[in-house]
């Protein structure tokens, strides 16, 4: 036997589920405002279906819920009855089919998800209007015309579809709160407690085949505002030691201002990462270890100085952005197309070196800049480039390639807005 609770109000989904959970551990959330649960185990505990229905109604009234309740022999019939009959509907097996038969045929299609809605038009053309009219059709004729789908629909109309409940697990909380007896001033004991809590949270993540995408930490401080920070991981993690190390690196850089009296750790879960590595591809750093290593290096050189360069979609010289992690998938096609020609590299001076350039007949003859000084032996240029006049990153300059008497080759440019000269880089 199954009970179905249905409310016209879509916002009442969670309270309905709570009510169902108080009676059964096997609850199916059929839709936002419909839940179905098994009441068979309640027969020994409460009694007859009538007594069970009374108990559910009483509990619902106490919780001030307005919903329809139906009890039927299978989940789909219970849903149909609860959706279309107000109040409490309690049927016997014989009465169930009679009640269902009164409903319009379209009601059947609201339950039968796997049946194409176009079938309703066909049945309508046949002159079938109610469920009972479909239920009394001969089985062989329905099979000949609609096959397996027709049989399923006919059985549904007769209240003879017995299926298991599609149980959705209750949401697992990924949050832990710890109130400390004594305030903590040092990082080490705090990390010890973090480690204990994170182990618990990561075990919970792994048991649900999930991983952490972000961790939110809230530290309640003595006589201070709570200290709150978030760490977002470029790769999903479910290893407590890695997360702990990242928290440690963050707290070492940004320590709280006062002793800690309580903390909350909250993990935002996501699908865990599954990778099938190939035998014939080169080894790569493990994502967790790489992330941790780059976080450690970021402590040394700054977060903005570590990452993977990505060019921006512009012609502006030296336009790039730093991304968090390199690509770690094995998308290498064989045979590998290896570059055979060597290209001259350009080493940049960041920022470009301000230079003094002496011109003779509009061409550079002498260049003087910090660390660079010489006579221009040969030159090529100028090449005028400009762009992005509509933004603050507007540039307009004339570039030259020059060979100095010190043996090196440079790229210099004149900024046409300020008429100043700069050394952009050296060919190497």
């Amino acid at each position, binding site marked *: 036997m199954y009970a179905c609770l249905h409310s016209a109000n879509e916002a009442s989904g969670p309270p309905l589920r709570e009510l169902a959970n108080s009676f059964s551990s096997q609850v199916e959330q059929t839709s936002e405002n419909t839940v179905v649960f098994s009441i068979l185990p309640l027969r020994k505990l409460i009694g007859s279906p009538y007594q069970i229905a009374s108990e559910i109604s009483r509990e619902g009234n106490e919780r001030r819920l307005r919903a329809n309740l139906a009890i039927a022999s299978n989940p789909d019939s219970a849903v149909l009855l609860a959706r279309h009959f107000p109040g409490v509907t309690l049927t016997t097996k014989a009465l169930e089919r009679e009640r269902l038969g009164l409903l319009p045929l379209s009601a059947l299609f609201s339950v039968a998800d796997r049946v194409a809605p176009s079938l309703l038009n066909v049945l309508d053309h046949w002159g079938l209007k109610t469920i009972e009219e479909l239920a009394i059709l001969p089985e062989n004729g329905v099979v000949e015309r609609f096959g397996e789908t027709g049989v399923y629909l006919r059985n549904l109309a007769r209240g003879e579809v017995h299926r298991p409940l599609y149980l959705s697990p209750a949401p697992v909380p990924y949050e832990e709160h710890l109130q400390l007896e004594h305030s903590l001033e040092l990082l080490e004991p705090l990390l010890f407690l973090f480690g204990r809590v994170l182990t618990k949270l990561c075990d919970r993540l792994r048991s649900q085949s999930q991983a952490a995408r972000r961790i939110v930490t809230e530290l309640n401080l003595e006589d201070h505002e709570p200290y709150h920070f978030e760490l977002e991981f470029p790769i999903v993690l479910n290893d407590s030691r890695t997360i702990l190390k990242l928290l440690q690196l963050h707290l070492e850089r940004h320590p709280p201002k006062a002793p800690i009296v309580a903390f909350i750790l909250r993990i935002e879960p996501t699908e865990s990462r599954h990778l099938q590595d190939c035998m014939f591809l080169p080894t790569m750093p493990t994502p967790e270890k790489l992330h941790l290593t780059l976080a450690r290096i970021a402590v040394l050189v700054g977060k903005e100085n570590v990452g993977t360069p990505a060019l921006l979609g512009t012609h502006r010289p030296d336009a790039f952005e*730093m991304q968090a992690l390199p690509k770690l998938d094995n998308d290498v096609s064989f045979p590998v197309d290896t570059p055979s020609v060597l290209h001259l590299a350009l080493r940049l001076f960041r920022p470009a070196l301000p230079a003094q350039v002496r011109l003779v007949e509009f061409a550079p003859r002498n260049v003087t800049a910090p660390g660079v000084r010489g006579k221009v032996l040969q030159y090529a240029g100028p090449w005028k480039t400009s762009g992005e006049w509509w933004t603050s990153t507007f540039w307009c300059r004339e570039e030259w390639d020059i060979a100095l008497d010190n043996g090196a080759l440079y790229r210099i440019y004149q900024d046409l807005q300020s008429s100043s000269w700069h050394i952009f880089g050296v060919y*190497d």
Partner: protein
Amino acid sequence: MAKHLLSQSNAFRSPKKDQEPRLTALECSSLRRLFPEGINRGNMLSLQGGFSSGQTAVCQHILSLATAHGEICAVIDLNNSFYPEIALAAGIRLDRVVWIRCQKNVKHALRACDLLLHAGGFGVINLDLCGAHQRELSRVPFSYWYRLSKALKQTPTILLVSEHEGQALSRCQHSLRTTLQVKHWTETGLGDIFTGTEIHIFAEKRPWSMPLSLLLKRG
């Protein structure tokens, strides 16, 4: 008799070389004369030369070969001089490169290199110390290079140290010096165009070998 038995038996042989796993070397057709079997993994390779000598071009070529095979590489950039646009033109897959800008701090560069080596799994790590003050480089304890070379052993990583002077030279299995030979300019009706250079590469530890001549095209 016992001596004879010992010499015949394989069981008492030293397990040294036979049991060491051999990692596939990085094949480099342009440098085949210097590295006939490719650049061996787990080795430190020093590249020295002044500005415009082509050492950065050689480094970027090796990086491009490694990234083409899908390996993850790293550039530890002391002077923030790596130019991603030119690197892409040289064939480097930028999405496989970790770029660390050390803001002229040699200590940070060496520490970052150490951390990357211990993380493992990198194909090529380019420690670019060009432009570092000689005084600052000479302060680096000699043992540090030993530590790096020790960390490299039995890893699939090649450490490329590029510098103007050879500080890491003694600990490197290979050391190359690049020099600029010819600058190529093409005359057109509207003036000259710089098209590339020709460089020579010397193997420092094999002074009797002939230099390798390479043509570098301007990208």
